[in-house]
């Protein structure tokens, strides 16, 4: 394999991983944008989505498309449920309480899944097989589907936020919650909607994740969530284009680090990025500069 085709396949690998990170990072960013909460349970919603798709296909033998829809629906419902049960009662509480609650929910979901599904990794047959040969390299269909689906999902999200009434309401609430309420925007509805959209993206992410790595385990969401969090911070947390950019950047960075033969340091490099961003440009690439009163 010459280095050009090697570089090409590594870029495809990076884009594939990056699209999943981007979808998950969007959920982080949207929720942070609207209620300033780092929703650390977000990664675990992906885990639940992955288990849903897994059981739908293996235990109930549903059609893959039905399973995918089911996984997205369950993730969405769970995201909204968590918001209603755990976060809404704490809306006026200090932000730290909210953050700790999010971590608690994350543990609850992980250990609940372990109790329910067992600590083993569940493995299934790959949903998508094969690929296209381009010269000396092969690009798998899974990679192509992942990249295309995530780009479509992101385009749809952009349209939703920019062009629809609900999108307008979301932007208004994230700008000024009090003023938005005074203008007659329903706070509860808008926040729940944000969680629903974020979790639906996580659901799509979980299915794409299963396409790439056909395994589900109770703790699969924690590392994925953390890396997506780094992606969101890198892009500028609260910014939707930033989350997409950050996701792809982290995915490509991982692939490049592996490509130059430093796969031992992959995770280290990702978290080093977090530290550097927080030190040098805490608002991220596309984040707005806000002076916060303490």
């Amino acid at each position, binding site marked *: 394999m010459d280095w050009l085709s090697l570089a090409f396949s590594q870029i495809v690998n990076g884009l594939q991983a990056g699209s999943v990170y981007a979808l998950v990072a969007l959920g982080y960013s949207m929720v942070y944008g609207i209620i300033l909460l780092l929703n650390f349970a977000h990664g675990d919603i992906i885990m639940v989505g992955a288990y849903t798709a897994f059981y739908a296909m293996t235990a109930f033998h549903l059609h893959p498309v039905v399973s995918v829809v089911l996984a997205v629906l369950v993730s969405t419902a769970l995201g909204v449920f968590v918001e209603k049960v755990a976060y809404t009662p704490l809306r006026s509480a200090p932000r730290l309480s909210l953050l700790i609650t999010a971590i608690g929910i994350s543990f609850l979901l992980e250990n609940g899944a372990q109790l329910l599904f067992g600590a083993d*990794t569940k493995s299934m*047959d*790959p949903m998508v097989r094969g690929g296209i040969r381009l010269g000396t390299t092969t690009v798998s269909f899974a990679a192509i589907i992942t990249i295309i689906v995530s780009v479509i999902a992101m385009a749809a999200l952009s349209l939703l936020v920019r062009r629809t009434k609900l999108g307008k309401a979301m932007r208004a609430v994230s700008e000024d919650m009090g003023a938005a309420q005074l203008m007659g925007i329903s706070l509860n509805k808008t926040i729940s909607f944000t969680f629903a959209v974020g979790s639906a993206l996580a659901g799509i992410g979980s299915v794409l994740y299963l396409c790439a790595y056909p395994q589900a385990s109770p703790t699969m969401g924690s*590392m994925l969530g953390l890396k997506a969090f780094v992606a969101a911070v890198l892009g500028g947390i609260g910014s939707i284009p930033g989350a997409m950019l950050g996701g792809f950047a982290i995915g490509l960075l991982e692939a490049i680090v*592996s490509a130059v033969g430093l796969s031992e340091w992959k995770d280290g490099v990702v978290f080093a990025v977090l530290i550097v961003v927080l030190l040098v440009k805490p608002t991220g690439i596309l984040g707005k500069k806000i002076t916060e009163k303490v």
Partner: protein
Amino acid sequence: MKKRVFAMVLAAAMVMAMLASCGSGSTSAKSGSNEIVIALITNTTGDYAQYGIPVHNAAMMYFDKVNAEGGINGKKITVLEYDDKADGVESVNAFNLAMEKNISAVLGSVLTGATIALSDATFEAGVPQVTASATAEGVTVIDPDDANSAIRTNVFRSCFIDPFQGEKMADYAVNKLGAKTAAIFYETGSDYSEGVKAAFEQKAAQLGLQIVATEAFAAGDVDFKPAMTNIASKNPDVVFAPIYYGEAGLAVTAARAAGCTATFLGADGFGSVKDYASAEDLEGTVYCSGYAPGTDSVKQFEEDYCKTFSVDAVPNMFAPLAYDAAMILCYGLEKAEAAGLTAGTDAYRKAVIEAISGMNNVEGITGSYSFDAKNNPIKTAAIIELTGGDEVFKEMY
């Protein structure tokens, strides 16, 4: 007043008990002429009893079998059974109690921590000890970090230590598969993976097997495609992956997707990998294991174990390894008996130790045994091959 009387009665009872125990100790020492006393120290209760009970059961099965066949040199083996609850202090206490009964050898303990504590005590007393399951280097080597460290010459084990598998697979790759180049894929931060990998590299260098790529991942990582793309670009003959089955499945799948056709090699962490990747991707993958269920040499043992203890299957690899540990111990006892020594004496114990370290390809049920300079077994490993989506025993190597 009443209290004082009660205390005196208690004290008297304790003195009586002590005298009684001394008495029984001396009788067993006296009757040493027609029996060989050994200690079996395992954790049959407590947190890790799932490992200790099979060791205890299988070892007792072997000793009972020897006794039923007339014992060693006409003498019965008397087994003193102790439960150490996987606690080092308890194992040493058990050993000290057993020493009062003039034991000739010790079989135990089960978990690494307790076994190291016990081996310190047996080393000082010069009593032969065989463990079935403690894999840490520190069991036989006093300071594993020091290459010139002294060895506990009296301690042996029937299981192989982790790095041994790396050497075995490098050897197998070169001599059986004819590999010239290899890639390594391992898990950073895992003692098991890094230890086996280091041993593989060392052996590969000795055998002239060229390592063309070394890639790694951290716990929790699943995205192995970039690493596998790198490995595929180097086109190695084999990929050695000392990792566990879940990640192994992902690694093989990712490698095939990246266009890598090399044979995957694994260590015993690969057991049950068949459920974690497709049959066609796994085809031809080989790994080594300490024990291959259902093979000819262990079949009889498995049947007997299931019948004796009314279970459906042998619980884990510790049972057959304990059976072999008992075999190793009895081999030493036989040699000491043949030399005409008196059981329980220092000369007898020394003879047992010398006999075991001089073992040369003695057949057990999990392989044949010889011991290296560090008292670790040089034994054959079971090579398991993935064929048509099943894990099939291929050969002993």
